[in-house]
């Protein structure tokens, strides 16, 4: 009898110990009762900020220990401030930042204001890779396609240099010879849309799918605006047949630069943590990110705001950064020249 009791006690102790071992997941222990801060490099409630907030509402559930999530805005210097924040933020996996792909590549371009090393950042992924368009409004005289634009000048609205809208427009102008007369200096897409409505300018590049599905859906349906070319890694026929920028050149050198502007930068809005996050936590964050993007509730909300999920993994971004770091100095000198 005694032996039985002893065996029972031993078995119970071992079970309890085993359970304790199973329960003590160091990642879960760490995140329990902690807050994960997601720093948005964008102004509150812009298109990109809305997407990060959406992620923030769901990702906590998929991280072991289920931390609270907090979104904090740190706009400025074309999202460079949010990227630089990662240099001084604790590298324990409690701070992640979202910024533009362009800000991520600034160190390669020799910008001394960019303090981080893109090769060392702990990349998490990107929710939506950019598929952007150039559009014309109100059919300016004799121009209805990108081919026409190669022969006839049209006024295009643009933001300040170094913004997506400007870079995309100027790359098309300098690489493919599109005759865009750029009126730069509009504070952002809403101001350019007002200028288009006023007839001040006739076209704009950098129009996102999300805007086409929501704010511009009506103008697109009634034919007031016409999409003339699409940019990005992959193409879509969702808005009718629109040619890709890559169809307009056969020159390998030009294609290489087009690749930089419309593939590398098309990573979208990458999310990263500081360099040196412990491997286990980083894996957990990456896994949680991927699982969130498959979550039904998340997808339903994304659909409501017209956002398409087109994920780039941490590996995708890392290899893109490594590729870019190997390009010679002359390449970046030329990129700089093209983007001016």
């Amino acid at each position, binding site marked *: 009898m005694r032996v039985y009791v002893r065996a029972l006690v031993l078995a119970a102790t071992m079970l309890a110990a085993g359970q304790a071992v199973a329960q003590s997941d160091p990642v879960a222990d760490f995140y329990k009762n902690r807050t994960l801060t997601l*720093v948005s490099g964008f*102004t*509150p*409630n*812009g*298109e990109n*900020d*809305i997407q990060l*907030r959406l992620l923030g*509402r769901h990702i906590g559930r998929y991280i072991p220990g289920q931390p609270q999530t907090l*979104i*904090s*805005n*740190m*706009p*400025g*210097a074309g999202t*460079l*401030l949010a990227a*630089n924040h990662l240099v001084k933020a604790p590298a324990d996996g409690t701070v992640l930042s979202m910024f533009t792909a362009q800000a991520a590549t600034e160190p390669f371009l020799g910008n001394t*204001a960019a303090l981080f090393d893109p090769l060392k950042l702990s990349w998490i992924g990107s929710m939506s890779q950019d598929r952007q368009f150039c559009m014309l409004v109100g059919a300016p005289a004799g121009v209805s396609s990108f081919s026409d634009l190669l022969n006839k000048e049209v*006024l295009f609205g643009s*933001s*300040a*240099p*170094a913004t997506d809208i*400007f870079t995309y427009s100027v790359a098309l102008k300098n690489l493919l010879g599109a005759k865009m007369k750029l*009126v*730069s*200096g*509009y*504070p952002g897409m*809403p*101001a350019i*849309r*007002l200028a288009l*409505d*006023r007839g*001040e300018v006739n076209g704009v590049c950098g129009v996102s799918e999300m805007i086409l599905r*929501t*704010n511009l*859906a*009506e103008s697109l349906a009634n034919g007031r605006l016409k999409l003339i070319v699409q940019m990005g890694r992959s193409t879509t026929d969702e808005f009718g047949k629109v040619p890709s920028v890559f169809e307009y050149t056969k020159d390998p050198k030009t294609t290489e630069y087009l690749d930089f502007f419309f593939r590398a930068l098309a990573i979208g809005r990458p999310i990263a943590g500081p360099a040196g996050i412990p491997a286990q936590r980083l894996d957990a964050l990456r896994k949680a990110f991927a699982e969130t993007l498959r979550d039904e509730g998340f997808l339903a*909300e994304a659909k*409501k*705001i*017209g956002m398409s999920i087109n994920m780039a993994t941490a590996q995708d971004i890392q290899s893109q950064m490594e590729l870019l770091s190997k390009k010679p100095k002359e390449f970046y000198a030329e990129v700089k020249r093209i983007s001016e």
Partner: protein
Amino acid sequence: METGFINLFHGFEVALDPHNLLWCFVGVLVGNIVGVLPGMGVLSAISILLPITFGMQPVPAILMLSGIYYGAQYGGAICSILLNLPCHPPHAVTCLDGFPLTKQGRGGVALGITMMGSAFGAAFGILQMIFFAPIVAKAALQFGPSEICMLMLLGLLAGSTLAKGSPLKGIAMTLLGLLLSTVGTDLNSGVERMTFGLTDMSDGIELVSLSLGLFGIAEFIRSVNNTAPLNLAYAKVSMNDMRPSKAEMKQAAFPILRGTIIGSLCACIPGTGPTIASFVAYAMEKKISRTPERFGHGAIEGVAAPEASTHSAVQGDFIPTMSLGIPGDAVMALLLGALMIQGIAPGPMLLTQHPDLFWGLIASFWVGNIILLVLNVPMIGVWVKLLSVPYKYLYPSAILFICVGVFAARHSMFDVGATLFIGVFGYLLLKLRFEPAPILLGFVLGQHLEENFRRALVLSRGDLLVFVERPLSAVFLSLSVLLVGTQVFFWLQRSKRTARLAKAQALMGDA
């Protein structure tokens, strides 16, 4: 017209639905409190509360968020008048006469007049939205870069004599404001200007930092020198003193009307917003007054006109946002984002696709403004009592709120440092008898002036005649010329008269 009333009636049904009414109340209450707290901007308040709207229906969500915006305007004037702290930039100009009124022990009266002006301005703004939204939306499309540029020039010329004291010093401060507005990345060339290589300055100086530094912190440093622990004149305010007299109401009536009209005109021009409206209203009041020397020393008109204009501009601001889908300023951009989260795209189709939302929002403006009046009028006494709190407690706590508010706007300690630095600079200016208000005017108008001037020239390929060829722009330019012309004419007349008088006196002296 008849359908307008039917729609509005339907809107009231939506707004008075208990669920919607509750959220509207929450919005205006939060807005009101946020408005009173210095530095805690509408932008941060809406951003903080936005996540709770995700699970809500679109109508109550928008009613609440809009309520925060216009509710904050009611609260915003309170600190400007009582503590010289412009909690929001549109109310900075209210400090000029509001604070002197408080020093005279008439802070309650100033608040009473503000409430009247605010309610009238808001009511007019809402009527404008009901009846003239399509016209306003169309008018918004008439304002191209050359028109906006000339309008800003007119505003600058009218406002350069904004401050009391030496006009030359006023002009110098306006120019300083213009100079400060050029700090940051140049929108046309992408070159950083006067940022001293600091990445934090690449987006320019924050308006909140500038206004709170120049008014709030500078006033705080000045008051530190006050050895008296408590200014008794502040605390000696009885209930009767708070009610504006008939004469005061009469004095404020026309300024309120004029301010309202200016505010609603500013609403037609996307991008201008309530800050410009309130400055222009104040400048115009001073310009047309027979006794401009009273301004800056506690003129009722100097409180009534800008406040009415702020409120009518705030309500009118919703027109381009809702009917064109183009936000007039940052707060409207935020609301637009909130609508997008709800899967609603504002624009010309909003009225037909979501009449509930459009008319419900308009009706909720009425309801919200009434709630605000009910909340605020009895509270005036309580706010005034705030002044009996000794300086040593009141101002340090205000500074704390300023720091929190400024930090929250961009998550940036740099901005907090900048606010304090600007405060010290503002104090030095005050000591040298330079008024800070024109700096703010130059700063606010400067960005629009430069941006639109350069854009107009890019579009006209460098042809300066574009400012004369477009009719609206020509009108504004002529008004500017007229303004300068009359100023010079009167100055010449005055100097001739003084010369004549001096001559006559000299002759009499000889005799």
